[in-house]
């Protein structure tokens, strides 16, 4: 006859195992950003990495690819974990891949503006990339705020060798604030940006994180953890959740002056699309963009609703342009489980045709 202790031993062992997994996942960092890379340039907190090519030179594309992510999140979402990394995928497709990590701004960086990122940091990093790669032309992929930076750069420096511009979930058009939740929140009637920056200097990462999560509070604060709880017996799901949670909880502040420009110039006054955004005396005119343009829209993006990203193609001067819509969220389209089957191959197909033939050095 089975004793009570014997009958309950198995379930309790299961609960204990699940508790151990949950504790580990919630209190440790996953091994992320594992693709081998070399640091080739630094300036202040910014770092430029070159990913170590895995294909011989004669099997690689001639034109290098520069990845530019947002300012207020870590860029390793592009290289999340081995086997599920956009960077790893592109390196294997024969691209010479570079990643610009903006770093975490300190109190000394509170006066950094979009002007500095677009006209100082980005051109310098690009110069170094050109020197290291030996190529005069290059491709640039901007994601989220990174897309604002790359768009401004492409408009202000159209003759700097930018051949291909890829914009992923780019918040560029702020003309329909009623469709943008963030625009409600930062409306000047309710949000005093100067008071916040006077108190903190930079926009704290925790506040940005709260803003992003509060867009979908139930999913982010409850559903996300239930998803983990439901899948504790599935190691692949746990590993994926762990990596994503490591990235999501790794928040960094945004330089105060840049945040102010984002709110006042863009969210409130839509200066980029109106053609009245001035960076260091130069007007950002999207019509000046000549690079081949690929715009990726996430159909269920709650951070950058499609209305913010889809109008850029009508404004640019580029002849070769494509708008690609894909179901999914702001991050999921590039880092979700389906990205390797849907988004990445499409980006590769578009870019491959415009990156010089393999072996043509």
């Amino acid at each position, binding site marked *: 006859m089975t004793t009570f202790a014997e009958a309950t031993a198995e379930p309790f062992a299961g609960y204990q195992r699940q508790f151990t997994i949950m504790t580990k996942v919630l209190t440790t960092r996953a091994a992320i950003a594992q693709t081998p890379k070399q640091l080739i340039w630094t300036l202040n907190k910014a770092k430029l990495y070159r990913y170590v090519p895995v294909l011989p030179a004669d099997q690689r594309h001639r034109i290098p690819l520069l990845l530019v992510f947002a300012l207020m999140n870590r860029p390793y979402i592009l290289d999340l974990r081995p086997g599920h990394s956009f960077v790893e995928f592109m390196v294997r497709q024969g691209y010479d891949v570079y990643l610009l990590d903006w770093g975490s701004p300190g109190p000394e960086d509170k006066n950094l503006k979009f002007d500095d990122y677009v006209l100082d940091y980005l051109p310098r990093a690009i110069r170094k990339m050109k020197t290291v790669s030996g190529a005069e032309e290059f491709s640039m992929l901007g994601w989220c705020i990174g897309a604002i930076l790359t768009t401004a750069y492409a408009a202000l420096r159209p003759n700097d060798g930018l051949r291909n511009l890829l914009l992923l979930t780019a918040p560029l058009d702020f003309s329909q604030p009623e469709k943008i939740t963030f625009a409600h929140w930062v409306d000047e009637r*309710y*949000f005093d940006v100067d008071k916040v920056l006077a108190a903190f200097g930079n926009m704290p990462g925790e506040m940005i994180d709260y803003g992003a999560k509060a867009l*979908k509070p139930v999913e982010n604060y409850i559903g996300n953890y239930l998803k983990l709880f439901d899948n504790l017996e599935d190691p692949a799901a746990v590993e994926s959740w762990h990596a994503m949670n490591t990235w999501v909880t790794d928040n960094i502040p945004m330089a105060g002056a840049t945040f102010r420009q984002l709110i006042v110039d863009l969210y409130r006054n839509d200066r980029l699309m109106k053609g009245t955004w001035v960076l260091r005396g130069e007007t950002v005119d999207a019509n000046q963009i000549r690079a081949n343009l690929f715009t990726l829209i996430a159909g269920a993006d709650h951070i950058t609703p499609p209305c913010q990203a889809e109008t850029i193609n009508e404004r640019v001067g580029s002849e070769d342009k494509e708008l690609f819509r894909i179901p999914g969220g702001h991050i999921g389209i590039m880092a979700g489980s389906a990205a390797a089957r849907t988004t990445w191959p499409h980006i590769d197909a578009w870019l491959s045709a415009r990156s010089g033939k393999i072996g043509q050095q």
Partner: protein
Amino acid sequence: MAEEKTNNGARFDPMSAWREMRDTYLDNWAKVMVEAVNTDAYAQATGTLLDNYLTASAPFREALEKVMLSTLAQLSLPSRADFVSVAERITNLEMRLDDMDAKLDRIERYAAQSAGAKGERRGKQGGQK
């Protein structure tokens, strides 16, 4: 565990019905919340909350800053402003170094190009001889 095999061989999970109910409830709740945070009332409420916090904490922040500054000065230790000033100077130095690096790269490139051109000329002259 509290699972039994059903007729078709799949394990019967008594919790699945509860999970379905939970997910349906959460989906509905999520929709309501997404609509709620997208209203002007929510924006106004969070804005007021933040504003009140900043207003209420400002005197304490300023007092703390003054105390910290005088304490650090008494201890002959640098303040945050001192560190910020040094960091800004370092960034300026880095910019100058980067400018020099760019110039060196250009010089190297020109040197390599002119060496290549000289080599070509010598090759042509050698061929003529």
